[in-house]
């Protein structure tokens, strides 16, 4: 059976440290836009840690929730794209094909999670920062939509390696950058179609919830809500 990549995020473990955010930037050639553009709402973070306040001082709470592309099975962004730049892959990924993107930005409007980011200008790196750019990931240009890919470059590398060694993929053999770096191990990534995989096991847990599941987007990212302490 074809693979179906998915993720589980345990909000009870997440500390909101944002290591995932920087790791993603480093891995995926996500450009920095500078203060002016950032203030205009053009900062690009494929994964972000949302924070929501509850109550008022002193009985105040703060909740974190890392949000990346949910790789929906019925993704609103996909049918909206007139050129197939955004479409579903056989491995359940929500592909964004940069070279096919003409920049209608319709997908970003349709995405309820607001995880699609647009290149309003050509990205720039002051030399020699560009020496760090990951050659396995393309550098996007102006007018192109971009988003979390579940680190598809790592998926493909692992698959090619496995084929070369004439074997299947092992669970946890590789991880997206965010999962790899997460200090409290709040994220788990893997193949949902492999019932043995950890992510599949967790996704079956009774703690499993989907973000905005009521919209029927069928996300492949599962959240475990934070729990409260009882004696």
């Amino acid at each position, binding site marked *: 059976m074809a693979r179906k990549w998915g993720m589980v995020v345990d909000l009870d473990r997440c500390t909101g440290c944002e290591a995932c955010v920087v790791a993603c930037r480093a891995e995926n050639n996500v450009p920095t836009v500078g203060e002016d553009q950032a203030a205009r709402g053009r900062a690009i973070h494929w994964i972000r840690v949302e924070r929501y306040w509850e109550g008022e001082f002193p009985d105040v709470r703060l909740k974190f929730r890392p949000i990346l592309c949910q790789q929906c099975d019925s993704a609103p962004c996909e049918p909206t794209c007139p050129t197939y730049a955004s479409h579903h892959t056989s491995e359940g990924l929500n592909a964004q094909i940069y070279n096919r993107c003409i920049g209608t930005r319709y997908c970003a409007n349709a995405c*309820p*999670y607001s995880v699609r980011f647009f290149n309003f*200008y050509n990205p720039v790196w002051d030399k020699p920062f560009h020496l760090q750019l990951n050659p396995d990931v393309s550098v996007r240009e*102006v*007018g192109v939509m971009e988003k979390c890919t579940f680190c598809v470059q790592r998926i493909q590398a692992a698959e090619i390696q496995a084929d070369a060694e004439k074997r299947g993929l092992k669970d946890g053999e590789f991880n997206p950058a965010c999962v790899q770096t997460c200090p409290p191990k709040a994220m788990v990534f893997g193949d949902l179609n492999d019932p043995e995989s950890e992510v599949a096991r967790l996704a079956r847990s009774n703690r499993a919830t989907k973000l905005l599941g009521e919209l029927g987007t069928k996300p492949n990212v599962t959240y475990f809500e934070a729990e409260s302490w009882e004696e």
Partner: protein
Amino acid sequence: MSEKTIAQINEDLLRPVLQTTRRFWIAMLFLGSIVAAAVGAFLYQVWNGIGVWGINRPVFWAFDITNFVFWIGISHAGTLISAILRIANATWRRPVTRCAEVITVFALMIGGIFPIIHLGRPWLFFWMVPYPSERQIWPQLRSPLAWDFFAIGTYLSGSLIFLSYPMIPDLALVRDKVTGWRKKLYTVLALGWRGTPKQWHRLETGMHIMAVVIIPVAVSVHTIVSWDFAMAPVPMWHSTIFGPYFVAGAIFSGIAGLIIAMAFLRKVLGLEEYLLPIHFDYLGKLLLMMCLIWAYFVFSERLTVWYGNESAEMAVFWSTQRGAFAPMFWTMVFCNFIIPFPLLAIKRIRNTITGVVIASWAIVVGMWLERFLIIVPSLSHKYLPYAFGSYRPTWVEITILVGSNAAMGLLYILFSKFVPIIAIWELKVGSHKPVFVRKQVTVIRESGGTDPIAAEPGLLTTDI
């Protein structure tokens, strides 16, 4: 009108075509520069990237799509109205039809450009067109944007035929009046119209068929435009009311646009005897009806959202009722209802052209705001409050908006320069008995002219 002789009619209606005034050139100069500025702004945007606009995340659409919907809306005046009136055989329509149909064609052209202007990479717009390529990919036909492409394409070509078909006799008329290069030009444009009974017959039937065909197309176009929004799960977009709501809004703004255009022509081209208060009165009534329908739609839309009290939608709702967008919202209500309703409802005011025109101006402004208020508040308040945003336009967007209006004026004036803006032959047909079509046949054979009543009756008998 019947007391006006054919010669006078020709004289009055062909004047703008035959002689060029200074005013014309000044208008061209003025509008031309504005349009040029808008084109410059667009090139500037292409060179630097669409970041020169005020759009951002999450407000990825703003002025661009607002203008698109607005102009498509305006386009609904002409063809739809004149088609309906034709079928209804409302004779008062005759002076109105052409200037209405012209609006449709130009508004569609302008509106249709915006989806291209608004692309992040406009130079790749042709990927929306289904054509075979070595890539072996076709457009995504599930995408409302692809539907737009086809819908607008159909409507535009339909309207073009609908407009140009009844132009033929008048072009022929001009052909016979002018000399030199323009003679050549109009000879081509007139498509060899000689006014034979066959030709007249075909013209009539053609017009009837087109009139029937164009109405469902017109309705479908704006429904599909509304689906650009209704198909996306965005708070207050994802609504079943949008189809009829948009169509109503479109006709509403369309008629307003038409009235403004007519008032303009009446003054500038001195057509006081042709575009009579009665026309404004009738159109005003139509406008009044649309005004009520529009108000009804807005009310029911707001009511259901408010009553539904769904968290995400309420965020949008309140942002328009009391929040950042409230001033715009209430201005819209003012422009689209509070002002026009009394002006149009009170007969005495409706009969003064001024009253109707004021109402129309208010409505045009109000309807642009309505489009904006459908798009921006929803985008800036999507499901996850963390991703809420706001929007402020830049000079580029404003220039392009102004430019699109200037382009409308420019094209309209140019058109009235080349074609009689009022269908002369229809007027004449309107002012004589239906039998004359038969008579005229011989006349034409005789004199070779196309003017139905050129020769004196005496000749008729002798020649048959």
